[in-house]
């Protein structure tokens, strides 16, 4: 069991305790398995964290974990913006960035 901040919650994780918004609204019950929709709902309601069961990455060691690799720079931009694309400004920034990096390639 561990308390995870909102950004760490993933669909399929199971709640130890119910999730209540700062305004006192019950958003999920103990034992429930999280869905994508619920996590979005938590974000909208300003939920900071939730206690979930069995959070350790199963059997994963640091050396097993590799950064994501991408077929193209545009794919990489889509990936890193994934959770922010609901914001109109962030959506625009992602679009502009894709156009610009397409002209440039990676400078590292």
């Amino acid at each position, binding site marked *: 069991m561990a308390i995870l*901040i909102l950004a760490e919650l*993933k669909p399929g994780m199971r709640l130890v305790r119910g999730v209540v918004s700062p305004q006192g609204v019950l958003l999920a019950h103990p034992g429930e398995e999280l869905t994508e929709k619920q996590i979005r709902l938590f974000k909208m309601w300003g939920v900071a964290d939730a206690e979930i069961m069995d959070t350790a*990455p199963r059997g994963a060691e640091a050396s097993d974990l590799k*950064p994501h690799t991408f077929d193209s720079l545009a794919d990489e*931009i889509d990936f890193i*913006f994934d959770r922010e694309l609901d914001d109109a400004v*962030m959506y625009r*920034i992602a679009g502009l*960035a894709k156009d610009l990096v397409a002209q440039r390639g990676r*400078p590292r």
Partner: protein
Amino acid sequence: MSLANPELDAVLSRVSSLPTPAKVYEQVTAMLADPKTAAKDVAEVVSADQSITARLLKMVNSPFYGFAEQVTTVSRAITIIGFEALRNLILASSLMELFTGGSHRPMFSLETLWAHSLATGVAARAIAKRTGHAADGEEYLVAGLMHDVGKAVLLQYFPEKVDAILQRVLAQGCLFSEAERVVLGSDHTVIGAAVAEQWRLPAVLRDSIACHHTPLQAEDPLRASTIHLADILARALLFGSGGDQTMPSLDRAGYDLLHLNDEKLQQIMAEVNRGLTKENLAILA
């Protein structure tokens, strides 16, 4: 916060014994407080530190400044860029001298961090200029360069903590700062602010380091919002890496303070993208 946090205490204790920036930074800061200080006296003090002088001239001669002539002496650099910009560049140079090498981790090293920091600095300067908040934006360049100094401390002195943070980042797909809060009970903004205190950096610099993820909590929200957006633009344009593969949320109220329209946003991003070529990034070497 009064809760005991041994993890953070260990880091902050290391910060309190960090080497200070090059002595020349303090000397120049003291000299600039005296209005009677002459350029040649400052040049003499700076020139005595060869590695700082070399890095300084490399920066002044980089395309970031775009001077037609080659600047070969510190006194000429002062004439062109002025005292304040010189002091900022000395700070940035000595910071890079202090944090070099270190360990290479998956997608994260001092090298990738400096590339990200430089891009953030260039973006911050571009934003400050386009929004009319600073004529030359020099201070913003340094504020961007330094915004993640707390991560540099972790990379240099706490590689095992970086491993634990990265493990979480990669397993959960979260931000570096979110993983830091789980592993350390705090994050690099707090560590960076402690570094700024330790080095007695200007309060505005400490403020933007401490609040680049929470700009409305800053004493100068406009400046912190500039660094906040600059960090996002540097990430968006894939310059370097701050140790994660996701985006911090944009603070919309902070963004609104900047009064950017779509045209300005486009111009800023194009300017940053043009400015950060392989050649320009070589000043980090």
